[in-house]
C-alpha cells in the first residue's frame, strides 16, 4: 500500500503527529488540561475556517487562533482555565462562527468535514514537510522543558520555590499544545483531537510508575493506533479517523477493565 503517494504521506504525517501528540498529551493529562486542549482545537477550527474563506492556507488560521487562545488561557491563569462552563460557552460560539465562515465558501461541505474529522488521506508532500519541521521543533522544545514541566505539574508550589518559572513555563506549554493541535487536525480533525492527545496518555497514566515510561507508552499507543487505522481503512473503506479513535478507545477500556479481569481470574483460580 505504500506504493501510493497518498498512503505514504498519510503514514509519514500520521506517525509524526502521533509521536508528538503522545508526548505532549502525557503532560496535558497530568496537568488536567484536557478540556483546555480540546477548547484550543475548537478555536483552531474557527481560524482554519476563516483562513479558507479568505483563501489562505488553513494551517495558518489554525496556528494563529490556537496560539492566540493558548496565550489568553495562560494569561487568565489556572483558575480560569479550569472554568469549564465559561470555556465551553465561548467555544460553542467559536464553532458556530467557524460554521458561518464556511457557509460563505463554495466547497464548504468537504472543507468542514476535513477540518472537523481529519483528512489524513489528503495530505500533500509539502504538508508532510511542514509537519516534519513542526514535529522536530516540538520534540526539541519538550526535551528542553521536560524536567521543570514535570516538577511544576506534580508540585507547583515546590517547583516555584525552587526557582522554576511556572507562569512562563505554563504559557510555553500551552503554546506547544496549540501547535501540536494544529498539526494533529489534519490527521483526526478538531472534534477527535482527544483520540491522539488525551486517550493514549490517559491509558499510559494508569500503567506507568515512571514518567518516561508513561510518555513512551502514550506514544506507542498513538502510533500503533494510527498505523493500524490506516492499514485497516485501506481494505475497509471507512474513515481512518474512526478506526484510530476506535482502536485507542478499545485499548483504554481494556486497560481500565484489567483490574476487573484480574479479579475474575483469581476467583476462577480458587474454584
Amino acid at each position, binding site marked *: 500500500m505504500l506504493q501510493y503517494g497518498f498512503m505514504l504521506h498519510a503514514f509519514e504525517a500520521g506517525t509524526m503527529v502521533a509521536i508528538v501528540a503522545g508526548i505532549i498529551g502525557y503532560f496535558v493529562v497530568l496537568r488536567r488540561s484536557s478540556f483546555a486542549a480540546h477548547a484550543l482545537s475548537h478555536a483552531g477550527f474557527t481560524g482554519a475556517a476563516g483562513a479558507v474563506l479568505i483563501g489562505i492556507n488553513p494551517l495558518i488560521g489554525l496556528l494563529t487562533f490556537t496560539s492566540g487562545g493558548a496565550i489568553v488561557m495562560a494569561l487568565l491563569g489556572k483558575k480560569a482555565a479550569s472554568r469549564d462552563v465559561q470555556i465551553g460557552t465561548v467555544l460553542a460560539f467559536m464553532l458556530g462562527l467557524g460554521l458561518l465562515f464556511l457557509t460563505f465558501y463554495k466547497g464548504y461541505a468537504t472543507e468542514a468535514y476535513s477540518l472537523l474529522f481529519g483528512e489524513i488521506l489528503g495530505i500533500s508532500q509539502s504538508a508532510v514537510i511542514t509537519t516534519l519541521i513542526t514535529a522536530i521543533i516540538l520534540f526539541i522544545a519538550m526535551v528542553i522543558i521536560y524536567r521543570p514541566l514535570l516538577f511544576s505539574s*506534580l508540585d507547583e508550589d515546590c517547583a516555584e*520555590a525552587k526557582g522554576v518559572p511556572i507562569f512562563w513555563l505554563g504559557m510555553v506549554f500551552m503554546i506547544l499544545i496549540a501547535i501540536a493541535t494544529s498539526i494533529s487536525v489534519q490527521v483526526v480533525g478538531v472534534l477527535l483531537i482527544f483520540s491522539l492527545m488525551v486517550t493514549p496518555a490517559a491509558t499510559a497514566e494508569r500503567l506507568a*510508575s515512571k514518567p518516561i515510561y508513561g510518555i513512551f507508552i502514550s506514544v506507542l499507543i498513538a502510533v500503533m493506533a494510527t498505523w493500524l487505522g490506516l492499514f485497516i481503512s485501506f481494505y475497509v473503506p471507512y474513515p481512518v479517523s474512526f478506526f484510530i479513535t476506535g482502536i485507542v478507545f478499545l485499548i483504554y477500556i481494556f486497560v481500565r477493565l484489567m483490574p476487573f479481569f484480574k479479579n475474575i481470574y483469581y476467583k476462577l483460580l480458587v474454584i
Partner: protein
Amino acid sequence: MEQNNVINVKNLTAGYGSHIVWQDANFSINKGEFVAVLGPNGAGKTTLFRLLLGLVKPISGQIELLGAYPKKGNAKIGYVPQRHPIDSETKIATVEFVRLGLDGDRWGISFSQEGTKQALEVLKVVGALELAYRPLGVLSGGELQRVFLAQALIGSPDLLLLDEPLANLDIRREGEFVKLIKSIVVSRNITVLLIAHNINPLLSVLDKVVYIANGKVAIGNSVDVLNSKTLSGLYDAPIEVLRDSYGRVAIVGAEENIHHHE
C-alpha cells in the same frame, strides 16, 4: 556572629502591594535552631516563608538569609508547602516524585541514576524507604508528609521551611513526626522553621517561637512569648495563656480576636 546567623530581620514590614500584613518585625534565628511559627489563620505566617523564599519582596525593612538577600530558587532551602493536592489515581512512584527535589528545576532530561540514588537515601532517613516504589496516589496523609519531607531534604539544605506539616495527622503521628524532624535536624545541624496551629507537640523540641498576630511579630523562647502579657500585647485584647501540670499550653481568647489580613 555572622556565621551563626541564618536569618536576620530588621524593621521588616510584609504585605502585598499596599496591603500590609505585619510590620516592624525584628528578630534573628541562628543555625540549628528549631523555631515554631504560630498565629491565627491569615496572620501572615506563609508570607514570612514567601519572603524567605524570595517569592515576595518586603514592603520595607531588611531581611538577610544566610548572609544574603533572599533569592528565588535557593538550593540551600528545603520547603514543604501547605495543601499538596495529590491525585489518588496517580501511578507515579514515590521515588520519581522525591528525586525532582534534587534537579527538577534544571532544563532537559537526565538519564543519570544519581537522582534515584539520593532519593532512596533520603527516603530511608525519613523512614519511608518501603514507600519508594509505591504509587503516590495510594499513600496516606501521614506517609505523604514523610515523602514531602524527604523531597525537601534531598540536596542537603541548611534551612527547612515546613508549612503546617502536622495539619492532617492524628495526635500519635504528630508526636512521631515531630520526633523524626527533630532527630534529622539535630544530626544534620539544619535550621527549621515550622508553621503549626498547636504548640503542644512542639514544646519539647523547640528553641524559639515566632508568634505573628494582628499585624505584629513577637519572638523569644516559649515562656517569653507564650504568656498572657505578651500575647495580649500582640492581639490588643485580653488573652490568657494557661499551663497544665505537664507544661502543656492552652491559649484562651485568641480565636475571638482574629483579624484576617487577606
